[in-house]
């Protein structure tokens, strides 16, 4: 299982890449393994939306389940991966790269403190 050390993680299997006050969000390698083949991704927020922490920002559907992607930090949506709905399989093949879902301009950087680091997430996935 791939858990990059430069990212932060949630207990619901989202990853967060922090760059200044911009956070990029996607789902983890562990999540895609659990879902199996992803056949559909719908990002349910648009650029400019103000979205609160824990809101649903995307729905990922695989051949056996549907899962919501929840926002780990509050803020304003500044970018949405428009290519993902056409190529949902990227969630399986490149979960930390081309399968990024949205970028958020964070409101409160302190919310990052509640997230796990790679070691913490690895421990969490084994529980």
């Amino acid at each position: 299982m791939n858990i990059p050390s430069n990212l932060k993680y949630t207990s619901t299997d989202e990853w967060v890449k922090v760059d200044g006050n911009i956070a990029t969000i996607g789902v983890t390698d562990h999540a895609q393994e659990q879902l199996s083949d992803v056949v559909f991704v719908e990002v349910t927020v648009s650029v400019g939306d103000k979205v609160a922490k824990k809101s649903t920002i995307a729905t990922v559907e695989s051949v056996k389940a549907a899962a919501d992607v929840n926002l780990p930090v509050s803020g304003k949506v500044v970018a949405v991966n428009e290519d993902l709905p056409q190529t949902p399989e990227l969630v399986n093949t490149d979960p930390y790269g081309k399968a990024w879902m949205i970028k958020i301009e964070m409101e409160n950087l302190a919310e990052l403190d509640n997230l796990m680091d790679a070691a913490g997430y690895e421990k969490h996935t084994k529980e």
Partner: protein
Amino acid sequence: MFTPHTDADREEMLRVIGVHKLDDLFADVPAAHRFPLLDLPPAFTEMEALMQMEELAGANETAHDLACFLGAGAYYHYTPAVVDAIIRRGEFLTAYTPYQPEVSQGTLQAIFEYQSLIANLTGMDVSNASHYDGATATAEAAVMAYSHFRGKRTRFILSPSLNPQYRDVVKTYMSGYEHELLGCDSEPLGKPNDLTALLNDNTALLVVQYPDFFGRIFDFTALIEKAHEVGALVAVAVNPIALGVLKTPGAMGADIVVGEGQPLGIPLSYGGPYLGIFATKKEYVRKIAGRLVGESIDGKGRRGYVLTLTAREQHIRREKATSNICTNQGLMALAATVYMSFVGKSGLRQVANLCYQKAHYAAAQIGKVPGYEVKTPAPYFHEFIVKCPKSVEDTNLHLLDHGILGGYDLGKDYPALNGHMLIAVTEMVSKDDIDALCEVLAEVNHD
């Protein structure tokens, strides 16, 4: 009587839950109400019961016994004998939801064929396995539009010439969502373009009917274009028989087509079970409610049918699903499938054409009866409005005395149309029936 449990089963179950006898389970029901004395007549034999049922049923006057001019959403058509013969087969009649493709290929294939026929008839990409009836299918269109815009668009425009029952059911379904319903109070006999003034960038869905509730036929292409300019979706509620001769809603650019499938080989019964048609464009397929059957191949390359795209449904997505409706009208969808397959493209056109021609003959004849005025301007399909000199209720009572089931009293839904009757004419009505109707209408005016 069939009871699945033996005395031993029952005793064991009682023992497991720690109760001595069955009556103890009812201890919480006040004693006086526990086993009320039922004042029932002595038991009948099967023969006696059947005779009594037949006697009761004989008191009914059905569309079959009368010359039927009543429509307004449910229509008396001929059902070829093959429809009943096939849908009464045990494999179809008692089949439950086909979750298991390995034991349900027949049911699944029938639904797949139903979907293919409906998609073809409506000019849309995809049809679901059906809903309860035309009204609930229309409501599902509203729920789908709400979900498509994720609740960000809250205006729903319903044409005043959309079946009043459909509008009521949409209202009920939408009561839990933030929304505004507009259009219902517009001039009932207005033109489609009257509705463009209500369109704005908060509009999720516009619903029109085709032919409309008054039988009128409009080409909605321009209206649909206007709706698309503000980003709204458009649903068209159809009579599937009329599509035998009319341009499809798909060709007009409709996003969703809903409708009442009852005219396709399903008896009038007592208002149901009917069949809710729901079809849409491919791009919305993950937002639709209900079941979808797809064609695939198995491990050995053989053709097979399965429920598909199930992750959008309520049993997986739960509260996040567009709708919690998974049920379809399997048996009625099968009846419609058999009907459409049997009559075929040319048969459906012939049925539609007979309805159209007979209705236009009837309108011309009624228009000649002193005191009556046909209010539906052409083009119309097989229904039209007649302004009556006496109340519609009295007129209909008089007609019934002569074995004629009169038209629908429009005053019930449209106060402005008090004294107006909606007359439907299908292939089941003969020229003699129409001439008899005109004679009695003339009598009513003279009384």
